[in-house]
């Protein structure tokens, strides 16, 4: 994700069509590749290949994007809209619910990656140490990622159920019935409980990626460390971790982005409640646009735009900070 191929790759230039026959090609030694400008580009073909994708992109991604920006400066009612300038943004700054949603989402996005990646690293190291049945574990742990958030949400509504959910059942069985509570119904525990759910979902995914990274490490380096009588702990800290660092950082960014967008899970389990304790920016935008009967699509568009800028800024900052550290240390 972070190493998006922005640099112009050396794409093979198109040979002039129909100028060389097979005989020419063998008889004449190949001339050095002609300068880029001399190569005719089949613009018609290029256009034809790109047209469907670009049309869809323009109609269902680019146009809606700009329309949201436009919306955010207007009051958008079903039949008419009027220009209000920065009024929506001014409202936003003083919108208590918005800031709660931002706070919740940021807590989610900043804690989840730590849990997910740390547990995933431990599991990946365990499998890397050649445990029997590693293949089975790997496939089994990955399963939660494949399930719809709707399915997972309902499952966890049951798991956290006060009367008969397995969590409380286990606590009571252990004699800790004081700790049993309606996990999703309590403003203090609802958000941590949901963070636990996303951790449950994504740990397996992170594990698989890390395991792949571990397996692609150069064998010689690790063997050299072993020859130097490096213990497991030292090998981990001084050899393995620095080598998989890029992967770790990518996973952190990826997990962060995912949590900044989170909607489905909250919508199925708590709808942002109780008392806005699990409201995320996504659910708040949805509520303001389609649930509260304000009929104004301008204000939610302003929230979406502001959030877009924040997400973009956060992702760029994270990527930049990680890159910078990389440079400093090597």
């Amino acid at each position: 994700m972070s190493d998006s191929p922005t640099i112009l790759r050396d794409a093979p230039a198109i040979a002039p069509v129909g100028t060389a026959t097979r005989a020419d090609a063998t008889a004449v030694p190949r001339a050095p590749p002609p300068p880029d400008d001399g190569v005719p580009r089949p613009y018609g073909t290029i256009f034809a290949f790109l047209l469907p994708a670009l049309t869809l992109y323009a109609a269902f991604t680019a146009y809606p994007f700009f329309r949201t920006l436009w919306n955010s400066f207007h009051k958008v009612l079903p039949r008419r809209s009027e220009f209000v300038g920065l009024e929506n943004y001014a409202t936003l700054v003083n919108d208590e619910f918005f800031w709660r949603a931002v706070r919740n989402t940021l807590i989610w996005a900043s804690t989840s990656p730590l849990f997910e990646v740390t547990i995933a690293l431990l599991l990946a190291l365990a499998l890397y140490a050649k445990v029997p049945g590693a293949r089975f574990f790997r496939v089994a742990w990955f399963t939660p990622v494949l399930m719809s958030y709707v399915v997972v949400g309902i499952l966890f509504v049951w798991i956290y159920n006060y009367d008969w959910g397995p969590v409380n059942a286990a606590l009571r069985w252990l004699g800790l019935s004081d700790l049993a509570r309606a996990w999703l119904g309590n403003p203090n525990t609802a958000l941590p409980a949901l963070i636990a759910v996303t951790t449950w979902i994504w740990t397996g995914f992170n594990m698989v990626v890390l395991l792949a990274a571990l397996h692609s490490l150069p064998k010689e380096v690790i063997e050299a460390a072993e020859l130097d009588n490096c213990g497991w702990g030292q090998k981990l800290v001084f050899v393995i971790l620095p080598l998989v660092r890029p992967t770790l950082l990518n996973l952190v960014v990826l997990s962060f982005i995912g949590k900044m967008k989170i909607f489905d899970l909250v919508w199925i389990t708590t709808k942002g409640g109780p008392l806005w304790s699990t409201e995320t920016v996504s659910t708040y935008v949805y509520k303001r646009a389609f649930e509260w009967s304000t009929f104004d699509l301008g204000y939610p568009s302003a929230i979406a735009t502001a959030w877009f800028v924040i997400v973009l800024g956060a992702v760029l900052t994270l990527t930049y900070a990680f890159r910078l550290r990389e440079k400093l240390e090597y």
Partner: protein
Amino acid sequence: MEVLKRSALLLGLSLYTAFAAGPFVWAAMMSLRTTTEITRDHFALPVPAHFEKFPLAWFNSNYNVYFTNSAMIVLSAVAILTVVGAMAAHCFARYRFRLNRVLYFLIFSTIIFPPQITIIALFQILVQYGLYNTRLGLVAVYVAIQLPLTIYILETFFARIPADLFDAARMDGYSEWEIFWRVSFPIALPAVATTVILNFILLWNEFLYAVVLITDEANRTLPLGIQRFMGDQLEDTGMIATGLMIAIVPVILVYAFFSERLIQGMTAGAVK
């Protein structure tokens, strides 16, 4: 000592496996039990197994409609995505033209967009064009949201195909379209399969766009249907569990046959 360590490690891993897979096993057991049985004991084995609950949910609780809708919408979106995405990816990887990288980057960068930035306007646009609350509208939106990832995965693969192959094909008189369809595409089949499976799973599970753009009972996809059923029949735990299983089965089937390819696809963006 070594043995002890090994067994402790295995025990830990097995515990985590129970933690990761337990919820599904539990739901699967409940899907075969009636709500009365479940209320008596939530963790008992499904004995006797009530397989008749599946046809019951399928016909009486509208799951046949939801399932058919999901299948139609997702399969058409995946088919369009594969062709449109592969054409664009082939073009980005193969031809050198001004704006190549600019266009590629424009499309690629939308991967990190939060969906809210388009969804409100998408709602307005679909209403305007009479596509709101239609399956066609949802298909179009699904294609658009998965296009960046599809192009990204395929472009990476197409770019690695040696250019000599194309020169040879060209000398054999293949047209540009034939080169794509009869040279590039078949060679890239592994990558194409990855995107097909990946898009299938992601769209099968999609909820946000569906909940905003579909309201009619007759057009609901599975995630919407489940959510509705959950809202209406909150107490009917057994039947909800059966519904969950109906939604999960296709995913499990795909995973059973293509687990490696699927894992590869899901992690494609993350490695490196």
